[in-house]
């Protein structure tokens, strides 16, 4: 599998090999070269802390984020837009975040088999201002707990609205909502 002469034999199900063969053919690479490259990338992903399954999930989340129209904004600008200083009415901002969450949730609900877990992974991957995202899911209830040492009180409330909007699109109603500076506690029921 490496450039060295030492080679090993690993048994792979025939159907997987056929599909991988097809991809390598389309890319104009030999199967052996393609497989070596793929395994090297998998080892790199592993060094970044991703098992193959986690890597696949991360790729799906990032691709969904692009499809949804993900965009970067300078954090200072966002802090300003979230603050009273920009003059926007609080309920207007909350509505925008809620509606945006609804739209996001709708997409995730259509796209992923387990939308609640996908949404959790989305928050973990893209909201680096959150140090902890915990989701407890039972048959008809979901509990969210998000912790951040960076979020302002206003930003915490708006993120909570975003999560509520997303969960609404996944078929959940807010049962309890508590957003303190840097801490979001949300309970939902189906």
């Amino acid at each position: 599998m490496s450039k060295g002469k030492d080679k090993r034999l690993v048994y792979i199900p025939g159907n997987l090999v056929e599909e991988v063969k097809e991809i390598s053919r389309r890319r104009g690479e030999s199967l052996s070269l393609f497989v070596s490259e793929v395994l090297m990338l998998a080892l790199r992903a592993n060094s970044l802390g991703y098992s193959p399954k986690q890597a696949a999930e991360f790729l799906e989340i990032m691709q969904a984020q692009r499809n949804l129209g993900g965009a970067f904004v300078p954090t200072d600008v966002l802090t300003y837009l979230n603050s009273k200083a920009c003059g926007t009415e609080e309920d207007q901002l909350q509505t925008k975040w809620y509606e945006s969450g609804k739209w996001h949730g709708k997409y995730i609900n259509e796209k992923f088999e387990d939308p609640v877990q996908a949404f959790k992974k989305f928050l973990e991957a893209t909201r680096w201002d959150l140090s902890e995202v915990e989701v407890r899911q039972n048959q008809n209830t979901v509990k969210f707990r998000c912790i951040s040492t960076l979020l302002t009180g206003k930003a915490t409330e708006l993120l909570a609205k975003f999560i509520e909007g997303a969960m609404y699109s996944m078929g959940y109603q807010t049962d309890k909502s508590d957003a303190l500076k840097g801490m979001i506690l949300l309970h939902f029921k189906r």
Partner: protein
Amino acid sequence: MNKVAKESDLSLYGFVNEVFELTLRANKLGVNLQTLTDSRELLKDARENGYTLGLESLWYEMADLAYAKAKNKALHAWFDAGVWLAKRYVTGETADPFEAFNKDLKDFTWNVPELDVKKTADRVSVRIVSPRFPESYTLLFTSFLEGALETFGYKIGSKEVSRGIICLEAVMG
């Protein structure tokens, strides 16, 4: 690979199978495994350089509201954000701070279809075309760029801005 497989509680056979399945899933998404490391790197850089990732439509709507309520304050806030970000590069240890800023700007504006920054000895020209930018966001983003360019020591010579289009010419001075 054997070691990595063992660490993940998998046999070599199981690990290679999972990698093959990952390859097929990535292929279905129209990406390859390199995208994983690239995306991870991009998010890390964005976090370190003071950017937040969210939905484009939400940013535009919030910018619209802020611009409508307090235009000058909003323009000032974006200008200051440009100054702050550019200062990170100017005061950092990068060999070519402007080039580093330019590279990051391109990476972090993946939603902008055309972004062209040309730098000659004492001039910089910026051309941005993004049909989805509303007028407010176009003007605020221009202000952000002006703040950054001024921090790099440039003075804005000419400016042509209309909804979704930004053309700036700046001269060192």
